């Protein structure tokens, strides 16, 4: 982490960048927040550890409007989002100085709490330089342990790989974390009967409180004004008066980011109700891969997105019924 801070200081000092976008230590062991640092002194609060899950690419939309370059720290998966934003002209590559930071999987505080660990005072083993496989958690109610892998976010278990797609320089090592099949969950649902599928999603979506955290954290959901906030479309929604509205919102949201979603997993990470929202996006990704050829959004900045492209012999919509 010191290496990152030192490099940030250098780049600030030599005028390469006007500010640094990274994470600031929180007041609890697990709540660092995305933050801007304008000078070397401020960087003393800089932190990069297992809880720095936020995808900073989205913040670069605003940062691109600022004077001068912004030094931004991006994890491998964040760089896909950044590329996608370049493709959509939403960020300015020239305004960003990207340091790709290593990643050994990001932690999910919800998982730690779900394991019954509460009253947390300190957590050891979340440091990025730490090779530890186990988190040592000091709580008011005694010391607890949890395997690092068990506390990881879902997205890290199906990691796309630790290669940065766009960067100016790289700092830090990464560790492979993929230990599950990307589409396993989607396939499990696909195999259900319509009744089971319906019950599954009804159950999950009925938790939705329409707080819009999924949308607002999503780097692909970067509309200046969302259709669900806009009066233009006669589609504005604010609360889920009826269960249909959650479905409408989540289907359309997933559809709008279909072919653009890099599967960064922010939607599921930020959902206060723990709804596995990535299952919508990943379903589209799977369909696109199967029907139109494998496509990874954000792998490049040039290729045509699947929904703005076609071939003459694309599958007919009736394939949906035929696939069973």
């Amino acid at each position: 982490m010191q290496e990152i801070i030192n490099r940030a200081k250098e780049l600030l000092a030599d005028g390469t960048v006007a500010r640094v976008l990274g994470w600031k230590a929180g007041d609890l062991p697990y709540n660092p927040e995305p933050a801007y640092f304008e000078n070397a002194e401020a960087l003393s609060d800089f932190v990069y550890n297992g809880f720095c899950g936020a995808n900073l690419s989205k913040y670069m939309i605003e940062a691109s409007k600022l004077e001068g370059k912004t030094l931004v720290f991006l994890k491998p998966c964040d760089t896909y989002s950044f590329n996608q934003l370049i493709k959509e002209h939403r960020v300015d590559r020239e305004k960003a100085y990207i340091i790709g930071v290593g990643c050994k999987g990001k932690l999910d505080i919800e998982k730690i709490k779900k394991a019954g660990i509460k009253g947390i005072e300190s957590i050891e083993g979340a440091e990025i330089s730490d090779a530890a496989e186990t988190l040592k958690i000091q709580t008011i109610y005694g010391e607890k342990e949890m395997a690092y892998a068990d506390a990881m976010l879902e997205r890290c278990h199906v990691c796309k790989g630790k290669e940065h797609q766009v960067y100016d320089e790289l700092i830090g090592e990464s560790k492979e974390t993929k230990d599950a099949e990307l589409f396993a969950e989607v396939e499990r649902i696909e195999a259900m009967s319509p009744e089971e599928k319906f019950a599954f999603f009804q159950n999950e979506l009925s938790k939705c409180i329409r707080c819009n955290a999924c949308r607002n954290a999503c780097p692909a959901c970067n509309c200046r004004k969302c259709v669900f906030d806009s009066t233009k479309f006669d589609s504005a929604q604010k609360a889920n008066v009826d269960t249909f509205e959650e479905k409408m919102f989540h289907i359309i949201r997933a559809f709008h980011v279909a072919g653009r979603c890099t599967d960064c997993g922010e939607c599921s990470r930020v959902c206060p109700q723990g709804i596995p929202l990535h299952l919508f996006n990943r379903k589209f990704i799977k369909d696109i891969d199967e029907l139109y050829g494998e496509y990874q959004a954000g792998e490049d900045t040039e290729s045509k997105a699947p929904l703005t492209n076609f071939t003459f012999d694309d599958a007919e919509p009736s394939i949906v019924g035929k696939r069973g």
Partner: protein
Amino acid sequence: MQRLGVFVCHCGSNIAATVDVAKVAEMALMEPGVVHAEDYQYMCSEAGQAKIAEAIKEKNLTGIVVCSCSPRMHEATFRKAAERAGLNPYMVEIANIREHCSWIHKDMEEATKKAVILMRAAVAKVNLNTPLQPGESRVTKRALVIGGGIAGIQTALDIADAGYEVDIVEKTPSIGGRMSQLDKTFPTLDCSACILTPKMVEASAHEKINIYTYSEVEKVSGFVGDFTVDIRKKARHVDMDKCTGCGVCQEKCPSKKAPSEFNRGLNKRSAIYTPFAQAIPNVPVIDCDNCIKFKTGKCGICAKVCQAGAIDYEQQDEIVTQKYGAIVVATGFDTINLEKYDEYAYSQSPDVITSLELERVMNAAGPTHGHLERLSDGKAPKEIVFIQCVGSRCSDDRGKPYCSKICCMYTAKHAMLIRDKYPDVNVTVFYIDVRTPGKNFDEFYRRAVEQYGVNYIKGQVGKVILQPNGKLLVQGADLLDNRQILKEADMVVLATAIEPNPDVRKIATMLTASIDTNNFLTEAHAKLRPVESPTAGIFLSGVCQGPKDIPETVAQAGAAAVKAIGLLAKDKLLTNPCTAKSDELLCNGCSTCANVCPYGAITYEDKEVNDHGIREVRRLAVVNNALCQGCGACTVACPSGAMDLQGFSNRQIIAEVDAICR
């Protein structure tokens, strides 16, 4: 709030027999905004239209719904009627209660219910209609023809004869194209040059036609009626105005090693050259790659021998910028590269030639001065084998999936001409199918068989083997006799597939004209608009659109000309007002809409906006109304709903959905 009128047509008994029209009118009055409703025998009649006009004026209607037949039938009628009464024509909606209701339902109650719902949907929509004004754009009365082959020449002549200025841009030093390389033409066997040259002369002499040879289109911007094109006139190094075309320079040029493009590389030409004797313009160009002066700085013989002083080694490329109202693409074709067909020994023996090369061999101005001889040793061949479909109808990546269309006929022509001139030469044709649809075409082919004794074998050749004695061993199959044939031949002629000129891709991109997987330009409609590109103002002439022979090419060239003339004859273009429109405050500038626009109608501009007090410069989508055809692909691609389609807006369609599901 709108003040709406609803007019329910009986259409005699067509509607009224199944739909209770009075009930529909009565129900209409319950709908929001409706202040007037009536039913009448024939709404489209003069009297019916008068009723509409009267109601519009008397009740100050801001919009009307006509419940009648299909809008495809009378929408235009009712729009005009509304316009005459002072209402914007786009404030008219049609509820189709005939084709979609009375004609297909028998039960009156059911049909009436449905008619009421269709009426409600139309009322819900018209409630959200806004008056639309068709835009206007001016038309530059000048056409550009890209390509100076027979297609381009014919198109240019037809447009020019109609009185409009035409520019032809031709890449090579002379117009004439592929047809100028041909010896004879089927099915009449007249001399190609004899029928082409007069047309070339006519084009060059036409006061309305301006020819840019040795030139290429560099950049195209603008849209239908108002294109701006940059043309690069490549440096000829010969002053067009001074040159008299005497030809001394070519004679004296010491560098005579360059393969002649015109003769398909079968012989050599000088570094300063005109491609062929009848070239237009008859002004040579210097091929700098082969010119000693340009390579070493020494020589300069051509300048010395030119009495007109036309040689100019310092000449530079020149860019001409010109405005056009219409552009016709006539870029033609070439034969495919045979690299991947090694089994035919094309690269191994000079006696294996393509049909186009045979044209040059047979031509009096060709490398052999019209004598049929083997290019390897100059001997007269006794046995000639023609192989059909070389690279055509191939589904692998070596060839083309389509039929090149012209090969069957020109092969029959070649076979016949050879048998006619050299009766002692045996001619064998290996074919898969003989395809001869066309006037007098099959008769022509039958003549080759019956009158001239050409040996047609159904089957393909598997391999051509160059033997040590210089002869070619052809191994083929005769599928009808079910035997394998080994035949020794002196010459093998390959009916090589044709493909669009490789430059067409670049040109299509500049024009935003779409192109298919085989690089043929796509027509606006395969059946109904075969000479227009989907991009407005771009027309297609000749083989750039698909394989065709000379008469078809000329016919299409004329058709393209007529389409271009139809456009140029207008002073102004009225644009369809039902075009896409982007809401500046909602636009993300993400380019998704532009990516799906088939017309290249969406561009991006950095614009300052005032978003509720926040002033900033944003990248925003701008729709060119002259180009937009109103398909709506962009509106769905746009995630924020910034892009909307006038006349079929999101809210209008949603209102219809709501009304139907009510």
